[in-house]
């Protein structure tokens, strides 16, 4: 559905996006994950036609967006990072305005607004001014304004910034509902939990480049990051450590009475505990270190997502 080839963009001497390529299939939720300044928003701006690339091509449904930006604009909806609404308008008036930009007939638009307000759970507040809304409610209207024209693709640029957990969950539900309706979603964030929950496939960006892409399982395979169990003992002797070393690969922190055992957590946990018991090792604490996107990102770049 979307094909991005060899895309680059510079601002003066700064190269914001460097020769990135990826494709997105219809109905996918595709995550663009990376820290601030990774080039995610620049990529979204190019894909949503408002910014021209220096090099490279973007095709949406086979249409070159540089050649036919207006056709592509009808196919996409963008949920900007900022809450881009008119504070002195009601929610309903805002939606009427944003919907009317897509030349939707008034009757049809009213019906769509009614349906969408139902979807986002704000029908009863539709006549209230936006400035009276909470941050989470504004975020939901911000999404609603982008989907009125029933786009096939929705770009969501960090749509949960600054919202409370309850509103975040509601936004996730909205995204999942939209995806179930067959809408393709491109989701940018620096929250790996959001990507893990929502995205089928992920591209990890850093310093303008895509450093890894694929499903979570594929990223795990590409990465050298391994799962581990960290055990803190009440007391541990050198002899006991040596007995453990005979059975497992260990990283030892003798001072803190702590060992890190690289393993498959689900498969090896019970075996490790029984070995400890057999060697009379008294466990004070166990921490399971699963491989997640944060770990993969750390492994790939040597830095944290929120650095």
């Amino acid at each position, binding site marked *: 559905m979307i094909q991005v080839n060899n895309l680059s963009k510079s601002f003066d001497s700064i190269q914001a996006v460097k020769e990135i390529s990826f494709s997105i299939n219809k109905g996918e939720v595709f995550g663009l994950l990376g820290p601030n300044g990774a080039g995610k928003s620049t990529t979204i701006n190019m894909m949503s036609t408002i910014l021209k690339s220096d090099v490279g091509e973007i095709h949406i449904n086979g249409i070159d967006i540089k050649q036919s930006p207006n056709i592509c604009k009808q196919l996409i909806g963008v949920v900007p990072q900022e809450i*881009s609404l008119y504070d002195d308008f009601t929610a309903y008036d805002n939606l009427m305005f944003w919907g009317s930009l897509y030349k939707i007939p008034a009757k049809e638009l009213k019906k769509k607004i009614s349906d969408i307000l139902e979807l986002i759970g704000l029908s009863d507040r539709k006549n209230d001014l936006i400035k009276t809304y909470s941050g989470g409610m504004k975020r939901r209207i911000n999404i609603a304004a982008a989907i009125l024209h029933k786009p096939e693709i929705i770009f969501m640029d960090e749509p949960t910034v600054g919202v409370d957990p309850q509103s975040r969950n509601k936004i996730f539900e909205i995204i999942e509902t939209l995806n179930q309706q067959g809408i393709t979603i491109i989701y940018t964030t620096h929250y790996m939990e959001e990507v893990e929950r929502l995205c089928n496939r992920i591209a990890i960006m850093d310093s303008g480049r895509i450093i890894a892409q694929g499903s979570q399982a594929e990223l795990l395979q590409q990465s050298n990051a391994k799962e581990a169990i960290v055990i803190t003992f009440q007391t541990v002797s050198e002899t006991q450590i040596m007995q453990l070393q005979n059975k497992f690969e260990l990283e030892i922190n003798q001072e803190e009475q702590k060992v890190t055992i690289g393993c498959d957590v689900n498969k090896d946990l019970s075996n490790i505990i029984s070995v400890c018991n057999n060697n009379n090792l008294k466990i004070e604490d166990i921490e399971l270190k699963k491989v997640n996107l944060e770990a993969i990102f750390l492994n790939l770049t040597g830095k944290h997502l929120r650095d």
Partner: protein
Amino acid sequence: MILTIFKKDIKLFFSDKRAVLLTFLMPILLISLFAFAFGGVGGNSKAKPIQLLVVDIDDSSGSKSVIAGLDSLSGLTLIPKEIEEAIGLVRKGKHVGVLIFEKGFQDSIIAGNSLPMELKYDAAREIEMGMLQSVLMQKLMSTVGKKSIKAKMSRYFDENFSGIPSSIREKIFNDMDSGNSNMSSSMNDSLSLKMTSIIKEVTKKGNLGLIQAVAGTAIMMLLFSIATIGGGLIDEKESGTLKRLLYSPLKPTDILFGKMGAALVLAILQLLVMFLFSWLVFGLPIFKDITALLLMILTTAFAVSSFGIFLVAIAKSRQQLQGLSTIIILTMSAIGGSMIPLFVMPTIMQKIAVVSVNYWGIQGFYDIFWRNLSLIDMLPKMGILIGIGLVMTIISVKLFKKNVLKLVDV
């Protein structure tokens, strides 16, 4: 902590070079402008003479001699014309007035009768006319006035005091010529130049001050109102709605023209309200030529709203917008006659005034309420207002296309 904030704000301010430039350039420009307007600059340079039309119906050696005498004055240039053309030019505001030497002028000098001469002038330039009048009277007195009065007195002496010795008569006439006796000044006063406002002849006298106040102020305030349109775009930028508009199928020029449309409607409404108010409260005769008034309101509103979108197109920050709008509005209002009536300004400022939308608007409203011109005669001014609007719109579109992405920080 306060020092940290202070340093940050100073750094932010100086990072916006255009805002810095405007902050310092604006007062310099305004100081220069007012210095020009009040004649404080170039005071030693030779002033351009006032051009006065002259119609010599008498066509006598006497009238020719007076015309030559007046033309020799350094502050005055006489331009001979036929009567109809001359009155037409004054009525249209092209010249300040016309001095007419009627038939029998020479005979009246010889006979000592009242001189059949008349100064018809554009009452819209009453102050300029006042200055001209004193120059004319002085010269006329020194040429024809004394001759006429001497002739009149000789006749009076002959009729009533024929026995007065000629030496006493000569003494009296010498005192008149010396110009330093009480008699001389009383004689000077006896010469009067008939002065007629051309507008007064055509219609009931209007209130020039009111027209100046309404037209001048209305256009200046209109410019201030339109500047808020620029502020609206900065609001859109700051709230992110401008970027969202660009994501939609709208073209950047659609956004610009949308704002211009809003500005135009607001400008028309504002002018209508101002003129209605002037009618209700001050009795400004707005219905004397309602078609012309509406067309002038439309064309003025169009020209002014084009300045609104020019501000939209050029300003990238709120500071820039405030600086630019202040400088543009005050400059155009000052040179265009909104703040100071044009006729009190030096000639060079009157010439510069034509670059201002205020000038054409104010002159257009003068044409309606004071000069009573026909719609056809007003069309050139309306055309110029439309032209200003079109040029500013074209420039604004080009600038906006270039700057819009910088506005949304992509």
